[in-house]
């Protein structure tokens, strides 16, 4: 099925002086998708979304958003986008409600303010000055401001960076509810679990280039056929590499043995039989899911976190 394109990027290049921040990337975001740009700091995520938002002008390549070419003066397009920028501040002495009303006045139409306060769970804080909000509340305000004009496409740049797990979970719920409303969301993150949790498809960026593109499940399946089985044994030294399905054995620093198995059911049955016969002292056994983190590690040779 041909998906309806909301964003299409072709051969995007952006340089700052001698540094090439984005080096010829192409991708398409379909309507109703949550699409994630994933990568470490400096990978080119923010530059890419700022070109899509029309805040930066690309050095080469073509971008089309909702059928238009973004530019700093394409006000008609800006009116249809919902934007949350990385690390923006607002006038600190205005209240939450006043800030929402101010931005509402900048757009041709806007969602009712009480509805936005409800969505962002900021109803109780509506009379609080922005400068006195917690990090999580400020971030939710930034997302509420991205929704102020009832946009067709939301572009969220690291919406959950710096939040505690509870606040992050609340924002994930908000973003998933937007998808439920049929909106398209383009977000950047350097949290793998966030990308896995939220995104229909992710694009992994490294040094301004595409490393991988696809749904989290497909990326994992493409790069890892084996399932990691973690076992803890009472007695060291047993050789498990001959068990059925096991392709690789890794022993980590804590002594946990990771068996990468192509046939996890058979491997576990064999382990259980060995244990039953008393040939190994099996203390613990865990099946771990392969994560995007493993994929990133495999593709770039580095961990994603700073």
């Amino acid at each position, binding site marked *: 099925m041909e998906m309806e394109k909301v964003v299409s990027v072709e051969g995007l290049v952006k340089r700052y002086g001698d540094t090439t921040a984005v080096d010829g990337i192409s991708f398409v975001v379909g309507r109703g998708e949550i699409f994630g740009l994933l990568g470490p700091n400096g990978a080119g995520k923010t530059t890419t979304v700022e070109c899509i*938002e029309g*805040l930066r002008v690309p050095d080469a390549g073509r971008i089309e958003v909702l059928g238009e070419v973004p530019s*700093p003066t394409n*006000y*008609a397009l*800006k*009116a249809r*986008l919902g*934007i949350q*920028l990385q*690390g*923006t*501040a*607002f*006038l*600190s*002495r*205005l209240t939450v409600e*006043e800030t929402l*009303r*101010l*931005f509402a*006045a*900048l*757009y*041709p139409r806007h969602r009712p303010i009480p509805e936005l306060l409800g969505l962002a769970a900021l109803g109780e804080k509506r009379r609080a*000055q922005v400068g006195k909000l917690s990090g999580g509340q400020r971030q939710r305000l930034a997302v509420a*401001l991205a929704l102020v*004009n009832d946009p067709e496409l939301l572009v969220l740049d690291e919406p959950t960076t710096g939040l505690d797990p509870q606040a992050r979970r609340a924002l994930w719920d908000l973003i998933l509810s937007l998808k439920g409303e049929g909106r398209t969301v383009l977000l950047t993150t350097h949290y793998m679990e966030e990308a896995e949790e939220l995104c229909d498809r992710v694009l992994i960026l490294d040094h301004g280039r595409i490393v991988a593109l696809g749904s989290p499940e497909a990326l994992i399946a493409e790069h890892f056929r084996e399932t990691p089985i973690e076992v803890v044994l009472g007695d060291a030294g047993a050789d498990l590499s001959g068990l059925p399905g096991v392709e690789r054995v890794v022993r980590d620093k804590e002594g946990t043995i990771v068996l990468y198995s192509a046939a996890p059911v058979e491997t576990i049955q064999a382990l259980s039989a060995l244990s039953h016969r008393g040939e190994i002292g099996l203390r613990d056994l865990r099946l771990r899911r392969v994560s995007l983190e493993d994929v990133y590690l495999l593709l770039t040779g580095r961990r994603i976190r700073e």
Partner: protein
Amino acid sequence: MRAFAALLVAEFKHFFRERMALFWMFLFPIFFMLLFGFVFGGDSEDQVSLRLGIVAEGAGPAAEELVRGLSRIPLVSEVHVGALEEELSALRGRKRDGVLVVPVGFWERLRAGEKVRFVLYYDASRTTTYQVLVSVIQEFLARSEEALTGRPRSFELAPEPVQVRSFRPIDYMVPGILAMTLMQLGLFGVAGTLVARREQKILRRFWAAPLRRSVLAGALISHRLAVSLIQAALILLVAVAAFDVALVGNYALMAGVVLLGALAFVSLGYLIASFARSVEGSTALLQIINFPMMFLSGIFWPIEWMPGFLRPVVYVLPLTYLGDALRQVMVGASPFVPLWLDIAVLGGWTAVAASLSVRFFRWE
């Protein structure tokens, strides 16, 4: 228009909730004025040296002798010879302490024993100076006549009061403090604010909205101009209430000069923000501009007091002209340059700073 109004309202709310800014913008100038007012508040009639103007048209070579004689009096520091109108306006501008009119043919008439009438114009507001002046001139004329004819008193000294506005240091200070406040509104209130908002990406979020830059710039400029009028009104109110400063100009003209001054420094603020990259950098740059302007532009003391080598700097600073214009239109002080020239210089500064800002200003 809706966006402009919303931004303007937001600026007002943000501004009036920022206590530190309110202190610097409104209370500090008033404290400053109260302090200066109480320290230097008294009348400035402590002058003991006299600056005389002599009008001696058609009085002949004898008048030159008279001028030489007057110059030798220890209490007389300056003697100027000129036409009546010229000297009277110098008296009104407080550049003379008295103007003596020497009648035509006084020499011959004194020798002939005729009564001769010398008119002495003086500043009616300065009674102490007047007393010194009259006794000095009286004594001088008596001695001159005695040396000439052997008997004094065939001359008559006719003092003529001239209404000169009485100037106290506080009268000079008030327009200066207002000028300083307008400058700082432009420097810190515009340049400082813009650089900080750029650094905190507050501006960037506005560009993500369908907002024209001219609308945002217009709202900020309008807000600062409105604040400058409020500042001017407050400072004048305190000046009149606490120090009885007499305002002479018409209020529309005052408001016009205040707005022009505010506009000149708002433009300068944008220009500084064009070249300052970070908040730290801009703070240093702003102080480098603020201090020389405050102390070299004659807003706190007369430009005549400043040494000659500093004069070129004085002539370049826009605050010199704003201070001068405000002194002229508010308290009727004697001009440093004519008012039209002040207005032209401020207008020129505004035009140059504004067009350079349009060229170089970066919103991000």
